């Protein structure tokens, strides 16, 4: 039995009548695009209701007679459903539960599904009885700018009192606390024409272009195509508009180059014809189907775009215009005609334009009596009057609604006309229309300024982004016939622009209509609160106050009153707000202008922007060739940039990481160990000018390096500071193998490419990154040669004479595997780096474990590597920090005087050669038991801890198992001249204050004897 079935059973028990479905008292007997053959059950605030497929949550609630759906942000006033679309300011719900709970979902766009759970927001303890509605009584205190005014003093109150209070009282729903269990993806696609909005105009454009064979993408925010054609009882080409939509949709589906993206909102227009869209793939289902994302973020690259996003109806500003039961006139027609729902049982219509009288006719046709048609215009066209009167409505011209009366539901409205007569009109539904605002948002993302058109009382697009044409209601052409014609024209033109030939086709026609409007920005003599921005509770009075207090620019108005700053971004509020500001400042609306619209036009979940890049997938993880082997050994891993490297190989019984690392260091210093160093950048450099090229990019000489030798190289930036270091070997007369640090591998490659292609294009040199082609293991320790001897093929002579320190060569290992061997050392021990093709890296590690077993071979990780380099005083990342010169890290002697090189001239600047600069030294604690901290600052022994006394900082520290105490490297002003001096290493963050002795940075084997054995 499905959920609906269970409800049926329950209600049947409670009511004694058998097998009745939960009633939907406001569902019309017929009509609408919902599937009445199926019933869906859902809950709202825990209460069960029924609806049909094709309903939105708002439509289903209205069908069940639920009018009160939320409380307002500031005053906690009862609120109902205002609209039938994305512009909805009031009807926001928390959808779903647990980790899938999503706040601020618009009920007017949330598609109903079986089992949907929704909860109202912003109420305590319940929607019907909200204690915080008392805020309404405090409203004189809560007017515009109340944040700024009330919470100025004392400042400590902000954090402790006001902010928690506001957060609890004025939250907009609760975000889920668990991690989102669904996944999201990002995709890029291309087309000739992107049609944004599949109302009649958009469909006409898509058909005209699609028939030519152009690649067309149609994006429609709604789950049905058709736009207003679904909501209005209109005729296109002599057929009901909805039937025309069905046929157009079927034809588009049949065109192979046309793609229709339903439930997809285009929310941003970017440079180069790039558009961003959000496809709600599975928001209309309880959980996404297997292997489907919840939402998909599209990047659509289009040669041409047609914006047919329609228009959004404006509310009228009068007292109590936020009462549940006050609804936009167009939305009333949507509920009647598209959903087969009556949003009330007795209606009145209040409008300043010719369009809204359709609502009178549609209500009457659906059997909802209309008490009155209220129009502020003294004279209205005869046709309008006729339609209203035929529907049985009393026509009140020159009349306005001064106040809507009721609390949780509308009871009646007070109307006054221009002769001073007052009327009470009974109704529980007031349909309002202040005219339509073209949806221009996307046209201003590239900087276009909307233009005010007085004749239609609307902002129309200024200069749209290149390649975009705006048509239909979005362009201010509200009449259906105009939209269809513009669509057919724009679609054909776009196809021609993309090189397709377009056959002449008749333009779809529709009946004529009047869209005449007489602006009414607010009702004078309105009583009670007259809301402009429903979601942020901004009233006409608030705008008046902003004007009086000098916040007159629209940008100031927005920030001061929060007009247009809520989740709906003021879609129903902005124009009314700035029109009021124009009135109060006696400027025209054109002079007042609008705020800038920026992407996104509608709220987009952060998860959609993140896509698959979450958690560990935030960025790619690169694994060195020995990763699987290290994992089997139970290594701990550390992220170094994108790489995941073995940090240490702990053994059972070792108390902590320090014990493990110390064991690894001791093993290398006294026996033999090995470590994967494949992550270092490796760049192959070849060509007749390779030597000259290296002389230019390195500070020291490489043209003098004999073939078969390696050399430490230091690279500067153009500004004279150190860029990177590494060893580079000469494998042949015109062939070098460069290594870089792990962190700078990509940056150095980019730099070398710039040098080669841009600075010195005539040099004959080629550079290729080969980091991933070679697995490189460092085998270090007094017994390294013995281990290596066991795997190199016989032709390799490893003797100290044949292959001395800093030798480099190629050969084979393990019976014919190509290899490169470098006798270089980071640890200070006898050491080799052996490189084999990456695919042999794993096997090489395993073979070394085998052949090294008798020698006690010990794999070591990045920690031991780091400890040994600190013991040897080699600078690394913390010292090559982008602020140090060669001299600062003790390598000033490398700056060649025999040649020019990048950074030479700038490195000679006085500021970079100042002898007082902090320079690399070693440091050891006077109290040998004391622990050192990287980041500690150096102070003269008895000086106060002030910035003026700062003399540098500790860059790297380690516990040296070789020496049995902590050691550090640091940059100390005039350091090398202060050996033996005692300074303070001051660490206020961790409360450290240690006296340290300045020493040479080389703590172990200062003569380098071990390297040469």
């Amino acid at each position, binding site marked *: 039995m499905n959920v609906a079935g269970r409800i049926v059973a329950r209600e049947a028990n409670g009511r004694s009548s058998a097998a009745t479905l939960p009633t939907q008292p406001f569902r019309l007997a017929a009509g609408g695009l919902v599937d009445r053959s199926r019933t869906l059950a859902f809950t709202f605030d825990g209460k069960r209701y029924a609806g049909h497929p094709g309903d939105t949550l708002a439509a289903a609630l209205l069908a069940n007679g639920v009018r009160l759906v939320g409380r307002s942000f500031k005053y906690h006033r009862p609120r109902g459903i205002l609209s039938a679309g994305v512009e909805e300011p009031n009807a926001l719900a928390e959808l779903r539960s647990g980790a899938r709970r999503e706040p601020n979902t618009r009920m007017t766009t949330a598609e109903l599904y079986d089992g949907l759970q929704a909860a109202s927001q912003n109420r305590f303890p319940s929607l019907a009885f909200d204690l915080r509605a008392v805020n309404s009584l405090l409203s004189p205190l809560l007017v515009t700018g109340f944040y700024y005014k009330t919470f100025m003093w004392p400042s400590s109150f902000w954090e402790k009192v006001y902010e928690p209070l506001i957060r609890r009282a004025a939250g907009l729903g609760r975000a889920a606390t668990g991690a989102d269990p669904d996944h999201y993806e990002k995709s890029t696609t291309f087309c000739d024409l992107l049609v944004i909005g599949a109302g009649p105009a958009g469909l006409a454009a898509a058909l005209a272009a699609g028939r030519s064979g152009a690649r067309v993408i149609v994006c429609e925010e709604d789950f049905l195509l058709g736009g207003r054609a679904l909501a209005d009882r209109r005729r296109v080409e002599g057929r009901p508009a909805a039937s025309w939509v069905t046929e157009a949709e079927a034809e588009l589906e049949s065109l192979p180059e046309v793609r229709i993206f339903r439930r997809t909102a285009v929310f941003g227009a970017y*440079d180069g014809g790039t558009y961003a869209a959000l496809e709600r793939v599975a928001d209309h289902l309880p959980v996404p189907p297997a292997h489907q994302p919840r939402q998909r973020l599209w*990047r659509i690259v289009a040669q041409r775009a047609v914006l047919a996003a329609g228009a959004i109806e404006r509310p009228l500003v009068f007292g109590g215009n936020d009462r549940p039961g006050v609804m936009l006139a167009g939305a009333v027609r949507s509920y009647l005609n598209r959903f087969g729902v009556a949003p009330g049982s007795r209606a009145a219509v209040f409008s300043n334009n010719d369009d809204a009288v359709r609502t009178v006719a549609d209500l009457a046709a659906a059997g909802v009596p209309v008490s009155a048609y209220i129009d502020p215009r003294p004279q209205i066209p005869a046709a309008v009057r006729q339609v209203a009167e035929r529907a049985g409505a009393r026509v009140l011209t020159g009349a306005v609604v001064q106040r809507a009366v009721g609390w949780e539901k509308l009871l009646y409205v007070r109307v006054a006309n221009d002769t001073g007569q007052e009327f009470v009109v009974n109704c529980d539904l007031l349909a309002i229309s202040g005219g339509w605002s073209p949806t221009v948002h996307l046209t201003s993302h590239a900087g276009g300024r909307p233009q005010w058109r007085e004749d239609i009382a609307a902002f129309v697009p200024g200069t749209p982004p290149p390649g975009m044409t705006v048509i239909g209601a979005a362009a201010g052409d509200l009449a259906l016939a105009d939209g269809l014609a513009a669509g057919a024209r724009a679609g054909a033109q776009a196809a021609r622009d993309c090189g397709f030939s377009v056959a002449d086709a008749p333009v779809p026609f529709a009946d004529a209509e009047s869209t005449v409007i007489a602006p009414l920005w607010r009702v004078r003599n309105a009583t009670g609160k007259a809301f402009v921005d429903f979601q942020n509770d901004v009233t006409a009075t608030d705008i008046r106050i902003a004007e009086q207090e000098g916040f007159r620019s629209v940008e100031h108005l927005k920030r001061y009153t929060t007009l247009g700053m809520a989740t709906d971004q003021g879609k129903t509020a902005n124009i009314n707000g700035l029109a009021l500001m124009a009135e109060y400042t006696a400027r025209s609306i054109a002079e007042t202008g609008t705020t800038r619209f920026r992407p996104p036009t509608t709220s987009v979940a952060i998860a959609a922007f993140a896509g698959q890049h979450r958690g560990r997938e935030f960025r790619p993880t690169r694994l060195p060739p020995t990763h699987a082997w290290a994992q089997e050994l139970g290594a701990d891993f550390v992220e170094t940039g994108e790489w995941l490297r073995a940090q240490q190989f702990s053994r059972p019984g070792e108390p902590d990481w320090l014990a493990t690392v110390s064991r690894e260091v001791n093993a290398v210093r006294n026996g033999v160990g090995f470590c994967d160093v494949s992550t270092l950048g490796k760049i192959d450099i070849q060509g007749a000018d390779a030597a000259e090229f290296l002389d230019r990019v390195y500070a020291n000489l490489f043209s003098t390096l004999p073939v078969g030798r390696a050399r430490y190289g230091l690279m500067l930036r153009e500004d004279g500071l150190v860029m990177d270091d590494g060893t580079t070997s000469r494998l042949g007369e015109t062939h070098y193998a460069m290594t870089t640090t792990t962190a700078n591998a990509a940056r150095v490659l980019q730099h070398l490419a710039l040098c080669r292609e841009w600075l010195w294009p005539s040099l004959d040199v080629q550079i290729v990154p080969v980091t991933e082609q070679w697995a490189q293991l460092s085998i270090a320790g007094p017994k390294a040669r013995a281990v290596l001897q066991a795997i190199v093929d016989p032709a390799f002579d490893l003797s100290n004479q044949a292959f001395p320190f800093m030798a480099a060569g190629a050969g084979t290992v393990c019976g014919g595997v190509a290899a490169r061997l470098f006798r270089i050392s980071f640890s200070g021990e006898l050491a080799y780096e052996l490189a084999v093709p990456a695919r042999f890296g794993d096997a090489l590690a395993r073979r070394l474990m085998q052949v090294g077993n008798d020698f006690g071979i010990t794999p070591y990780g990045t920690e031991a590597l780091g400890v040994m380099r600190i013991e040897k005083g080699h600078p690394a990342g913390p010292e090559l920090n982008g602020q140090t010169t060669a001299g600062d890290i003790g390598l000033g002697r490398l700056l060649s005087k025999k040649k*020019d090189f990048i950074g030479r001239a*700038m490195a000679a600047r006085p500021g970079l050669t100042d002898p007082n600069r902090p320079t690399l030294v070693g440091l050891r604690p006077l109290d040998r038991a004391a622990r050192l901290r990287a980041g500690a600052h150096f102070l003269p022994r008895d000086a106060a801890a002030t910035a003026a006394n700062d003399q540098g900082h500790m860059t790297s520290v380690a516990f040296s198992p070789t020496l049995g105490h902590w050691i550090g490297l640091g940059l100390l002003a005039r350091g090398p001249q202060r050996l033996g001096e005692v300074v303070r290493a001051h660490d206020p963050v961790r409360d450290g204050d240690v006296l340290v002795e300045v020493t040479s940075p080389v703590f172990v084997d200062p003569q380098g004897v071990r390297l040469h054995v």
Partner: protein
Amino acid sequence: MRIPCPHCGERGFQEFAYYGDAGPKRPAHGGDTGEDVWFDYVYLRDNPAGPHEELWYHAAGCRTWLVVTRNTLTHEVAGARPARDVALERSAAP
């Protein structure tokens, strides 16, 4: 923004790394250039409003440096050429 890479075709700018103005000419290698000229080359840049020739690196593509002509006001990209070609042309010019 879309950049027409001469090797890879038109691609989104996210694939590229921006370097900056392609105008400044590096003082000759091995020359005896004054510090002020170096300072100008390394640090000083114009900020033109309109078409601008600038260096972009196709990091997630062909790894080639390009000279891209971009309008700084509209982000319209007028074209892209391999930086090496441009550099050779400039060095050939008197």
